[in-house]
């Protein structure tokens, strides 16, 4: 009999709105305190000090519209946030500043979260849903120049992009984009040619979230149904279903593989966070704390493995912080 699932290490309260996005920034040196960014439905981005477990700053830049994605660019001083006001803001947080340096107007009305990839020092690529319903646009940051626009072939009827993941095999290789669509398919795009490399129809329902492990060339996606789908990419750049995992309750709103690729966590509509071993998708734990849908899960990037945390944000306005499987 396995040990009962643990309690959250602590719970962050005070967002006073449903939490939609989380991002850790714990990589700093000693005097820097570990930080968690959270984006909530009321348009605020809270900067949590994980040492005092309190909000250090609250950033208001999305006109009270829900914030659905937050990501840092090199440390905790530059923050990207995407809001439902169709803007992506670049924040300058250095030395206590809280100003928006730059912003991009996406013109997309969907829920699709952006994806960011660092391709070189001081150069990033960001994929985001574009104005046309089924298009994805890739920008280079910080110059904001458009790299390409990925438009499915006419008649493909993929629907809107639901989730994006930019990745590359190693630093020099060509960046690729995985995107999940409304019709339940996952598509691998070649950015330079702007065309589909492979398409995999793996869900009956829209793909809500996906994550990809470039080392194992294996990815996982979840949708609003009771299935997690694991697929892999073979040498010919073809996506193929590896296996599926049935869930008890339907609905996965977020999937994240831990940076060390050992475990992954899913955020469920059934209020629970599920933890799996990444290798065989062995169910490890069901973390039950929230009283409403869990919107997002995120792993910390702390240098010390024992202090790597898992955070989950939920509709019940709380962010639960868990310390699990830090030894493995």
């Amino acid at each position, binding site marked *: 009999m396995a040990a009962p699932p643990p*309690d*959250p290490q*602590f*719970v962050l*309260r*005070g967002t006073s709105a449903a939490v939609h996005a989380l991002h850790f920034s714990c990589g700093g040196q000693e005097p820097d305190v570990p930080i968690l960014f959270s984006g909530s439905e009321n348009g605020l981005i809270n900067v949590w000090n994980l*040492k*005092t*477990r*309190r909000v250090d700053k609250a950033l208001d830049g999305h006109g009270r519209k829900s914030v659905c994605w937050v990501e840092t660019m090199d440390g905790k001083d530059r923050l990207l946030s995407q809001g439902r006001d169709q803007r992506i803001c670049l924040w300058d947080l250095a030395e206590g500043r809280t100003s928006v340096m730059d912003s991009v107007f996406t013109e997309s009305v969907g829920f699709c979260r952006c994806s960011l990839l660092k391709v070189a020092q001081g150069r990033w690529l960001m994929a985001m849903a574009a104005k046309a319903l089924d298009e994805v646009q890739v920008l280079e940051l910080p110059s904001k120049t458009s790299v390409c626009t990925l438009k499915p072939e006419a008649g493909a009827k993929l629907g809107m992009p639901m989730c994006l993941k930019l990745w590359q095999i190693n630093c020099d290789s060509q960046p690729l984009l995985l995107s999940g669509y409304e019709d339940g398919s996952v598509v691998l795009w070649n950015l330079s040619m702007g065309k589909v490399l492979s398409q995999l129809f793996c869900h009956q329902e829209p793909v809500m979230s996906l994550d990809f492990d470039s080392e194992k060339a294996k990815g996982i996606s979840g949708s609003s149904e009771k299935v997690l789908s694991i697929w892999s990419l073979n040498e010919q750049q073809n996506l193929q279903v590896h296996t599926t995992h049935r869930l008890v309750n339907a609905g996965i709103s977020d999937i994240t593989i831990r940076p060390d690729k050992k475990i992954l966590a899913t955020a469920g509509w059934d209020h629970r966070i599920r933890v799996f071993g990444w290798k065989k998708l062995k169910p490890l734990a069901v973390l039950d*704390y929230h*009283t409403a849908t869990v919107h997002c899960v995120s792993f910390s990037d702390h240098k010390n493995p024992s202090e790597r945390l898992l955070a989950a944000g939920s509709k019940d*306005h709380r962010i639960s912080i868990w310390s699990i499987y830090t030894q493995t």
Partner: protein
Amino acid sequence: MAVFATPREAFGALRPACVRLTQAQTAENVALLRARLAAVGAAALQELQEYVLFPLRLALASPGPRRERLAQSAARGLAAVLGATRLRGPELLRELLAELCACLAPGTGPPPAPAPAAAPASEELKLAVVEALHALIHSADGDVILSLYQPPALHLLGFAVSLLLGLAERERAKQVKISALKCLQALVLRCECQQHRRLREDEEQQCGDSFASFLPGVSLALSRVITADIKQGHGTTVAAIRVFYRVVGLVMADEQLARIPENKEKPSVEQSGVSKLAVHRGPDWSKNTAEKLSLLLRKIVERSSVHSHWKVRLELVELVHHLVRNCRQSLVDSFTHLLKALVGLVNDENSEVQSRCNEVLQHIAEQQLVAHNRALADVLSENLHSLATALPRLMNSQDDTGKFATLSLLLGYLKLLGPKVNIVLNSASHLQRLSKALMQVLELDVTDVKIVEDRRWGSGSGYEGSLQHGVQKGRCQKKYFRFFTEEKVFQLLQQICRVLGYYGNLYLLVDHFMGLYSESAMYRKQAAMVLNELIAGAAGVGVDVLQEREVSLDVDDIKGSITSILDEYTDQANWYLVTSIDAEETSHELSVNHSGLAALPGAACGSVLPSPDPRVTTRTMNSNIWQICIQLEGVGCFAAVLGKEFRLLLLSALYPVLEKAGDKTLLISETAMGTLVDICEACSYDSVQCLINENSDYLVNGISLNLRHLAHQPHASQVLDTMLRHSDASLLPLVEDVIQDVLLTLDQLYDHQASTFLGVLYSLMAALVKWFGPSCSEEHRRRQAAERQSGTLAQVQPAITRQEVEQFFLDYVRQKQVAEGNLSDSGDEEADEVPPVAKPEPSNSDTEGETPLPSHAQLAKDVMERCIHLLSDRNLRVRLKVLDVLELCVTVLHPHGNHLLPMAHRVWPALVTRLISDDPLAVLRAFKVLCTLAQTCGDFLRQRFSKDILPKLTSSLLSQAPASARAGPVYNHTLAFKLQLAVLQGLGSLCEKLDMGESDLNKVADACLIYLSAKQPMKLQEAAQSVFLHLMHVDPDSTWLLLNEVCCPHLYEPPHTSLQPVKLHGMGKQRNEFTDNVLLLLEKLQQQESSVLQAGTQEASPA
């Protein structure tokens, strides 16, 4: 006044007297000379010094029967001359010395023909001679006096010394003894007067050499004097001590000894005779001497440190000071005793001794004598070790004063060691001894049962009271120790620990005592106490030390230690201890339905993690309580140490403290409150409330997480309870979230944990009533009072004026006409105008229903929802508690009628059951709830009450009445009686509140009437009276009629013959069982009516 200033004049004046004295040595002549001398100036006298001295010396040495007085007088004369002049010739000095000595020691001295009678010279003479000697030594110039210390003069010096010692030792007269000692001191050139020039080093050395020869004799004799009978007076002892250390300090001075060559110099030939007397102060000699001196010193120290006169003890301090300063190497072996004496005197009862002692210690520390002198540190640590070894034994055997002395000694050693204390601590055996000794000494007395029995009667009446505690300054609880009772002993121990913490290696100490803490439950409390003090000491809080430590401690180090100690303290095994047997009660309570009276609040100490041993003794619980208290005090102390830095630790520390603040054991909750106040101060929060509010996120987090575990739920609810108790309305938005959690948890566990949560719900509702209630209820009360006032007035006023009676009849007639169809047009129009005024008024209730409830009311509603379910709990206690909570809910929801009424509707069935078929206690409380409910929803309840409850109540009252009328005094203790009483007590006010209809009132009156019988128990009669008093308020007329039907004291004559005579049933009846009570009630009714009447007329009269 020098009359004769020049030598010539002086000579003229002195000559006759001198000549006369030379011719005839009589006391008178000496006196004459002395009188003349007084008039001669010092300068002039200097010239004539030898001339004047001659006759005096002659007189001194002269034989004869009256020699005694003569010699005495001559000695005085000599002293006078010498006091005014300087002696310039070494020869003269030696001669005078010899002659004076001879006077003191007749028989051995030069005077050839000693008178037999003079053998024991008189005290006056001795005194005079000693003083002359003193003057002689003082008058000698530096070089001159030094000649005395040349080897050739050694025998003379020795003679003088031995004489003086003899006097000091054997003489009876105190004055002589002291003078002799003073003289001796002068002879050693160590007197305090300023006239001497400072000796050069080589001269000092020479003196030292000379006196080395006499050291054995001098020291022995002096030590005898010092340790002699106390009757000799303190002056002598003080003087002797002073001479002793002067001599020893001179001879054994490190400076001098260091200069002594290894081997003895070859004495020059001409000195060889006397040089046999001289001593060579080589290493061997000094070692030997030091050993012997050590014995003497020990005796002296032992004797004088307990001397009853403080000046002696003060002098002892000086002795130590002097020797430590001058002979720290030569006399190192004696330091054990010397330092012991010094350290022991630090806490002397005399403040002067104390302060001097501190100064000396300070000096020793400042010089870093110990720090730079390994030997001394060794001595001290050796002392410390042996003391620590003996400590437990001493603590067992000594009385409090003895213990105090012993511990002072320990403290003193530690202080003296200063930073060197680490040498001691680094030795495992030393540390072991010391810590074990502390553990033993600090053992608490845990036999007091009261500690365990004292409960905080939390949720009930104590609600307001406990808020007051927050104001109190947090200070330590008085502890009771097994081995001592005096507070100052404890303070010493505290100081010892703090000094340890101040100087010692904190990591080492904390580690060691943490080891002891976890080693055995026996040591746990003491170790915690020590740890608390160590930390305080390490931070330099309240430490009294002699020297600064070398490296001031890093805050991070302290923080690290504190964090680890805190972790240990708040570990489940050390924090959740069994402190009361309630724990068992609650667990049994689930199966056994208690029907006892005991309304224990909530019984909140649920099952704790370390499963409680079924046979927990009072002693264990007491011990556990103390352990928790000490740990709590520790938290407070840590906060004080860290100040604002502690804010970070609040994350983990605040929750456990609040947990304990809600503990049922009085001592624990008080201590925890103290800790909270300490934390407030340390972290600079304005108040406990502020502390709680600003850190509510941490607390809420803890509560919410702990609610997830059955075992921790009671603690979590305690924390919430405490938060609510000590905060205000501003807390509500912060905890709303977690209150919902509590309710959710409760929903899952109705069966088991209900009583736990009811405590919280009660506190919550009580807090809500306090925060939001009073204004509303006050308003309500005012309104109610006003209503009643106007109501009664309305009833009464028509009776006052005839016009109104007339008007009433006119109206009545008109109404009747209207009813019969005889309408008059004019009246119609008036009637039409009235209704439209009322119509446009917006109905309040509609809007209220739509607006969202304020959060507190919403909470009250949620809680009330739960109460509905819990009202029928199997456990009486739970039911009682629920009824209490329900009442508060109703109070809070009072202003929101639209929400209250549906809830009341739902509560009703369960409440009815409580009212008609439950334990009397529950009935009583249910009545209270009913009354509260009645205040708001009277109309709503009236119908239901008369339908559901009233019949049952009246019938039970009626059926029980015969039984209670027959019963004896024992009946008062039966349940039936209590039930009757409860109903009768509640019924009256209920009728009034519900504004019941006439038929119901009649029912009530009928049922209660039989209880007015004198046969009923007194209490029931009184309760029944109360019912009627209430009825009088509602309907005075019918009550009057009813009562008069039973018994009518007056005859009522109709005012006019056309009216029918008044006939009442009670008229003319015999006195019966009801008479007394009815008469009493009628009288009260009369009073009430007349007072209302008065009020009415007063109000009416201006109009």
